[in-house]
């Protein structure tokens, strides 16, 4: 399978603050990969590095095999980029922006753009600056569909969108990406819509990758366990994530089967252990903690 995105040993600091140390990952062709993380973990930073808008302290990223600092125009044409906040040239109106971008891409699909915009209550002469964030998100998505790139890079696409627009965005994107075999690399800090969208999931913690697994594997195997315990403190255990006391009950998260979790906690007098299937958002909380 072709590798579309490669990041090798990326280390970056803002001033003295470490953002990542030796970050490594790759995205294969046809995959939808979500980069999830709390605010400030460097999601936008990696998008900037990938597109050559930020020079990391060390390491290299490649798009379609090209070094991030020397991405050729031909490769740029294969990448659709959505900036955080659905930033666009808001001095254009709906028609003008389509006309502008259409000049750069030989396989421009004008109909795909206007098909998507039919759902919006906007006129063709309406300026983007007068649109709501949700409407602008659809214009940005419509432009990406019309460009028909092989790789979509979406930075925090859910930012500022109400649940309706978020769902609309996700549904269109999922249909487009799966039908056309596109590769998608996206970041978000709203996890709830990702379950139905992403194939693979990278969860970022401060300075490192906490987890890189297929979403299905996380959903099937990662569980929350609630239990009572005689001990007042439970020391950190490998493979048990964020074990903490909430009120009179304890909770922990793990990929381990129930029997093994029970065995690990026996030393602390754990009893009444119950296992719960959880959403991706809960899994994210379980892995990264609430704070």
């Amino acid at each position, binding site marked *: 399978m072709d590798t579309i995105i490669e990041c090798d040993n990326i280390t970056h600091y*803002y001033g003295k603050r470490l953002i990542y140390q030796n970050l490594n990952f790759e995205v294969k062709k046809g995959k939808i990969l979500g980069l999830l993380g709390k605010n400030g973990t460097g999601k936008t930073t990696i998008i*900037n590095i990938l*597109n*050559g*808008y*930020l*020079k990391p302290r060390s390491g290299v990223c490649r798009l379609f095999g090209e070094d991030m600092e020397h991405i050729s*125009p*031909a490769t*740029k*044409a294969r*990448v659709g*980029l959505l*900036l955080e*906040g659905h*930033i*666009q*040239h*808001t*001095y*254009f109106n709906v028609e*003008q922006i389509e*006309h*502008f971008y259409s*000049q*750069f*891409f030989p396989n421009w699909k004008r109909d795909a753009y206007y098909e998507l915009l039919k759902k919006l209550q906007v006129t063709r002469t309406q300026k983007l600056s007068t649109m709501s964030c949700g409407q602008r998100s659809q214009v940005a998505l419509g432009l990406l569909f019309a460009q028909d790139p092989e790789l979509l890079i979406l930075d925090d696409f859910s930012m500022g969108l109400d649940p309706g627009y978020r769902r609309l965005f996700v549904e269109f994107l999922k249909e487009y990406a799966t039908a056309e075999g596109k590769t998608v690399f996206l970041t978000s800090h709203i996890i709830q819509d990702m379950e139905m969208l992403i194939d693979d999931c990278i969860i970022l913690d401060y300075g490192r990758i906490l987890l890189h697994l297929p979403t299905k594997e996380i959903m099937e195997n990662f569980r929350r366990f609630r239990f009572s315990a005689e001990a007042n403190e439970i020391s950190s255990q490998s493979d048990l994530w964020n074990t903490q006391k909430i009120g009179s009950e304890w909770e922990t998260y793990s990929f381990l089967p129930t029997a093994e979790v029970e065995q690990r906690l026996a030393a602390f007098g754990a009893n009444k252990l119950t296992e719960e299937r959880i959403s991706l958002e809960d899994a994210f909380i379980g892995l990264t903690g609430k704070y």
Partner: protein
Amino acid sequence: MYKALFYKEWTKTKRITSLLAFVFLASLIYTFINTGQLFRVSGAVEVWSAVLLKDMPLLPNWIDKLPLLAGLLLGFSQFVPEMTDKRLKLTLHLPLPETRIVATMLVYGLLVLFSLLFFSSLILVVYLSSYYPQEIIAMMLWSAAPWFLAGLTGYLFAAWICIEPVWKQRVFNALIGVTAMLLFFFSARSGAYVFFLPWLVLLVFISFGFPFYSASRFKDGAQ
């Protein structure tokens, strides 16, 4: 593709360009009325001798700053929207070499500015030809040349200041810009600048390179 970039720049700047065209036209009309009035009241002999012997300017005093004002306004109207929300990232992501994208944007601005100055000068020369001899008009054009160059340089400095991603550096760029602009407005007798003009032209060419430096800093994510 370059046509599309021009289209984008035009969309951003059409209002300010129209406003500048109106201001230039109004300034020309003012100059025509003023010149006509001067000749009616004082007579051709007195006006000519004042121009030749007392170095009386043919144009209103404030008109020397007009090209600079036009350059600054055009530069800011073109590049402030580009830096708002860092939209320049979208522009640089277009499938063209980045230096060519920046160069096209700058060439657009310089062409608009040059057109405004060229056609204003042409109209002025045609009109004033009915009042003054060719030699006096040529002298006026030589005197106005530094102001025109100030407009072009001012535009390039405005672009440089806008594209620079770091505020501290922006202030530094602005200070360099102000200092450079002073070179174009030394108080001197008309024609005194003639021997200095090649250096001012050189300054225009040098200023063309500055925005590329800041665009490259923007690309590297300087903060």
